[in-house]
């Protein structure tokens, strides 16, 4: 470890890091803008200037940029030398020449890195009296607001969007004092990760547009550590609430999972929590089909009356917490329980769980995936089924660049140099899928195959790795590429609902492991707790099994599950006609609830605590950000009250959340670590609970004065070590309990570094969550056989689901902005099929499927396997489409093409036009 001297202070620093990192690691505040721990240095903003001295005698020194200067043994620096402090102040002053004085109306105010840095360098008086540059802003879609006047030209947005996230529609334009960051023309940002611009931008150029509709300052938000329920990746989030509304979702750093970034579904998809479709009160269905609102206790009593002495069965939910599912299953008994998957989904997800429990390959975190040096993706469009993983894979293919940099003696953080050196050289990524995917642009090989052929291809690769090459030369080549790697990663998942694909992925990983590679195997599964529920239950606990016994059931309890999305209408009819009373427990209104006899309002993830098991097998805890309004209750509370009222001997002994966790942990060996996922309710930091509110929270306002002028009492949290109050300490606690980041002098999200053990390292309290699945010993052999081929009928097409970040997930799709981006359901065809049918993009095609005709808009695919067509998965119109089944197509002669819409705007573009793209102007 080299020793350096900063203002005489001797520091032991990490080999290979730069001065800025060394200072931050030592707790020294050195201001910066363009450097980002995940994106390295480019030395563009000149803010982290320090004075370097040649030796002890040198008293003059020279100015160097902290982020561009590697540490060397004995190097001497000063932050306090006048030369440096004046320089840093001058940098801020020059940035302020054009920066507007609009902090009071800027959404970034109060969590602005520019504000923090301005205070840090001591710049106070503005001397410049001239006019400021003004810019025309662009409409960038419903998620991101654009205000270019505030730009300080640090280039972080463009570097994040293009270099890190692979977006192509945001660029740095023009030069010197009129540099502009935006699109070629106004329009929706195409990247699925655009929301991170909000956090990457050190000032208020890119801000959270939905937040602006009901704005609150960071210091007025009540936050809690939470887990995103948008997909199975389990990104850590910090949602913020004010006045009973969920205002926004910010990233919560987890070194091993999401790092600094979220996808747009995760960041913007929680609007449904404030939706008018939320259930407020329990409802009892009357004879005329309408619902009568009843109180919690009445609802529990009614249910108990129906259930006592009768046969009760239940359907769980892969989007509900482990605790709720566990309680429900304990209550009704596993023979009366269905896990809540659709039947084919259940088979695939249970198989994935079975493989992960026994495989010798590692089920990696995203951090581990980013270290992969060769990647094979089997049948997944990862960007849409596990978005944050896809962002990680984009970093993984850069390992080639890092390797080249190492050979050239370049540190990894020299971002521009490393990218220049590598150009388009990337680590191998092979994508085998039926249709084009959003990672095609970085793939080294693309193979278009239908689901069954993917499984065969996978088996051939596995065999070739094991030393038995087949006559499929591409499979042999892929095997070679994977064998050349040290840390090969196989990614597959449930989206094709094909067990053979899942198996073949496991077989490849095992074959690589047997060839002494550090093989990694990652599966994308559909929902936030799919894997958790699969680990809790057995494959036999299926809805089909329950329907077969429907006549024996008197009462059926359905937990957070809109069965319309899982089973066919005829199966729902079978359930109904058997005569059982239906009790539905959910967050949002849906069609299923309207046929239930009793509806119970459940709290959303933002109002409840629970544990979710991510696709990595990581169990993570989320906590209520605010207390549920009206008579909503967390599902686990309903599922304590109901069995207790029915006299269930075991469950009636439980009263607190921690007790359920303990009971669940004790229920099987695999769940033992659940009690260690987060500290229990009794945990105190420095003798205090952890405050959900900042110490600057504006406590009293007149917002509810129309109801009461008395200050309402703060709710008391009996279930967690967090408190609904500003009194408490948010410092030094385990990472699973950090509600937001703030540190003196660091109001922006950059204060995160004060919570990290080192720059870009894990949080001081360790990484949040507990991994339940570690590599075992079993080697998987694929059983996929060549006889598995379907005989295609002419003019029949196999349906392949196309998942969309915006629109395919049930709850987030209710969010206004997400539903706008989701657009209409569609059918996607290859160019050849489209030509045969005589249709183009935007035309209509009638899809006939099991005797049902559906007219859908056409999209044209760039890459498609033989006989495959894609359809928008999870959209209301296509819910009855069955993955892998066959459909016939015909042009819809009645179809009205949608008139091309003018680019939407917010109508707020009232600033006078000016010269941002004025290349004529110097």
């Amino acid at each position: 470890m080299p020793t350096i001297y900063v203002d005489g202070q001797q520091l032991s620093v990490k080999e290979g890091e730069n001065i800025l990192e060394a200072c931050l690691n030592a707790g020294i505040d050195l201001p910066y803008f363009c450097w980002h721990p995940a994106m390295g240095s480019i030395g563009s903003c000149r803010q982290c200037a320090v004075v370097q001295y040649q030796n002890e005698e040198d008293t003059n020194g020279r100015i160097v940029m902290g982020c561009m200067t590697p540490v060397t043994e004995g190097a001497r620096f000063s932050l306090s030398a006048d030369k440096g402090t004046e320089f840093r102040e001058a940098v801020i002053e020059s940035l302020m020449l054009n920066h507007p004085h609009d902090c009071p109306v800027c959404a970034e105010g109060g969590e602005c890195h520019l504000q923090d840095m301005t205070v840090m360098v001591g710049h106070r008086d503005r001397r410049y009296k001239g006019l400021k540059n003004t810019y025309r802003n662009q409409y960038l879609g419903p998620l991101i607001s654009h205000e270019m006047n505030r730009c300080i030209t640090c280039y972080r947005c463009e570097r994040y969007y293009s270099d890190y996230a692979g977006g192509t529609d945001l660029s740095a334009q023009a030069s010197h004092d009129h540099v502009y960051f935006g699109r070629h023309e106004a329009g929706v940002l195409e990247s699925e990760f655009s929301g991170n611009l909000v956090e990457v931008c050190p000032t208020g150029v890119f801000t959270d547009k939905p937040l602006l509709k009901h704005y609150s300052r960071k210091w007025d938000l009540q936050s809690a550590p939470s887990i995103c329920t948008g997909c199975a990746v389990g990104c850590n989030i910090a949602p913020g609430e004010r006045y009973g509304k969920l205002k926004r979702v910010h990233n919560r750093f987890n070194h091993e999972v999401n790092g600094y970034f979220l996808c747009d579904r995760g960041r913007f998809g929680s609007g449904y929590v404030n939706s008018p479709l939320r259930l407020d009160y329990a409802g009892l269905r009357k004879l005329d089909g309408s619902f009568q609102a009843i109180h919690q206790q009445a609802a529990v009593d009614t249910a108990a009356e129906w259930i006592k002495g009768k046969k009760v069965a239940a359907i769980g939910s892969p989007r509900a917490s482990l605790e709720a599912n566990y309680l429900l299953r304990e209550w009704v008994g596993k023979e009366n329980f269905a896990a809540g998957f659709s039947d084919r989904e259940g088979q695939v997800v249970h198989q994935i769980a079975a493989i992960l429990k026994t495989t010798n390959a590692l089920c990696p975190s995203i951090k581990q995936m980013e270290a992969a040096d060769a990647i094979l993706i089997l049948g997944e469009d990862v960007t849409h089924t596990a978005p944050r993983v896809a962002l990680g894979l984009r970093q993984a293919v850069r390992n080639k660049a890092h390797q080249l940099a190492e050979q050239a003696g370049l540190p990894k953080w020299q971002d521009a140099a490393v990218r220049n050196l590598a150009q388009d050289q990337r680590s191998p990524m092979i994508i085998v899928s039926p249709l084009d995917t959003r990672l095609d642009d970085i793939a080294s090989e693309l193979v278009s195959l239908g689901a069954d052929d993917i499984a065969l291809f996978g088996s051939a690769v596995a065999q070739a790795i094991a030393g038995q090459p087949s006559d499929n030369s591409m499979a042999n080549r892929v095997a070679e590429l994977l064998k050349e790697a040290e840390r090969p990663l196989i990614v597959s998942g449930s989206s094709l609902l094909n067990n053979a694909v899942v198996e073949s992925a496991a077989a490849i990983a095992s074959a690589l492991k047997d060839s002494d590679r550090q093989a990694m195997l990652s599966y994308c599964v559909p929902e936030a707790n799919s894997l958790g529920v699969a680990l809790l239950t057995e494959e036999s606990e299926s809805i089909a099994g329950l329907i077969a016994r429907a006549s024996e059931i008197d009462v059926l309890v359905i937990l957070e599950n809109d069965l319309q999305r899982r089973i066919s209408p005829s199966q729902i009819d079978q359930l109904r006609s058997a005569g059982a009373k239906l009790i539905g427990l959910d967050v949002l209104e849906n069609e299923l609830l309207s046929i239930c006899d009793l509806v119970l309002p459940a709290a959303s993830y933002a109002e409840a605590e629970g544990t979710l098991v991510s696709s990595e097998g990581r169990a993570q805890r989320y906590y209520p950000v605010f207390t549920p309004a009206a008579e909503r209750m967390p599902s686990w509370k309903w599922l304590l009250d109901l069995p207790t009222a029915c006299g269930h001997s075991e469950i009636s002994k439980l009263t607190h959340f921690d007790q359920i966790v303990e009971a669940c942990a004790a229920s099987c060996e695999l769940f033992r670590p659940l009690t260690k996922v987060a500290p229990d309710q009794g945990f105190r930091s420095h003798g205090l609970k952890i405050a959900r509110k900042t110490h600057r929270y504006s406590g009293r306002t007149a917002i509810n004065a129309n109801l009461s002028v008395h200050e309402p009492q703060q709710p008391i949290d009996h279930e967690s070590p967090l408190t609904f109050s500003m009194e408490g300490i948010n410092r030094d606690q385990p990472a699973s309990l950090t509600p937001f980041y703030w540190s003196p002098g660091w109001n922006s999200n950059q204060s995160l570094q004060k919570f990290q053990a080192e720059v870009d390292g894990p949080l001081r309290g360790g990484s949040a969550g507990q991994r339940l699945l570690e590599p075992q010993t079993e080697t998987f052999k694929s059983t996929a056989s060549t006889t598995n081929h379907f005989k295609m009928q002419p003019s029949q097409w196999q349906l392949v689901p196309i998942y969309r970040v915006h629109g395919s997930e049930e709850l987030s799709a209710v969010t206004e902005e997400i539903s706008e981006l989701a657009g209409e359901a569609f059918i996607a065809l290859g160019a050849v099929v489209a030509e045969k049918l005589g249709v183009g993009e935007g035309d209509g095609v009638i899809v006939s499927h099991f005797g049902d005709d559906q007219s859908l808009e056409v999209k044209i695919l760039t890459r498609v396997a033989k006989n495959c067509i894609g359809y928008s998965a999870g959209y209301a119109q296509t819910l009855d489409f069955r993955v892998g089944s066959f459909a016939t197509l015909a042009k819809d002669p009645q179809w009205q093409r949608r008139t091309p819409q003018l680019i939407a705007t917010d109508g707020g573009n009232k600033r006078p036009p000016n010269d941002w793209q004025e290349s004529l102007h110097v």
Partner: protein
Amino acid sequence: MNDAQMIQTDRTGLLTQEEIRQIDAELAHIPYKSGAAIDALKIVQAHRGWVSDESLQAIASYLEMSAEELEGVATFYNLIYRRPVGEKVILFCDSVSCWICGCDKIKAKVSEKLGIDYGQTTADNHYTLLPVPCLGACDRAPVMMIGDDLVTHLDEEKIDQLFSDNQSGGDQ
């Protein structure tokens, strides 16, 4: 350009066969298509006087870049014109040597004569006036370029001569 010469590229834009031939000649020298971005912009500008949004989209499509990526290049360079210019562009040097030699006065004369300021085009579309930081002819300062011609040792008289038959400024 007539329609027969046009080739429809992947996007909405149009490049002529001649433009494509010239761009292809540049592409032959470089490993990455996007490397020809500047040359392609210059080629199209040489044919059309300036680079419209449609032209830019067509070039981007031909070079397999996004319009944003090419826009970043196009707007970086002052001499790629993203707005229409007159038949001839006057690049008026306002750099230090010319400034010492009194270019401010001469610029005022040009503006008076043509009735335009920096960034403007004469009503008859003959001239667009732009400042330029240096033309590399300091020994003959003050200087400017009219189209492709360098005009040196400028004085007010010379400006009068140069634009003597120019009608465009007269009515302003």
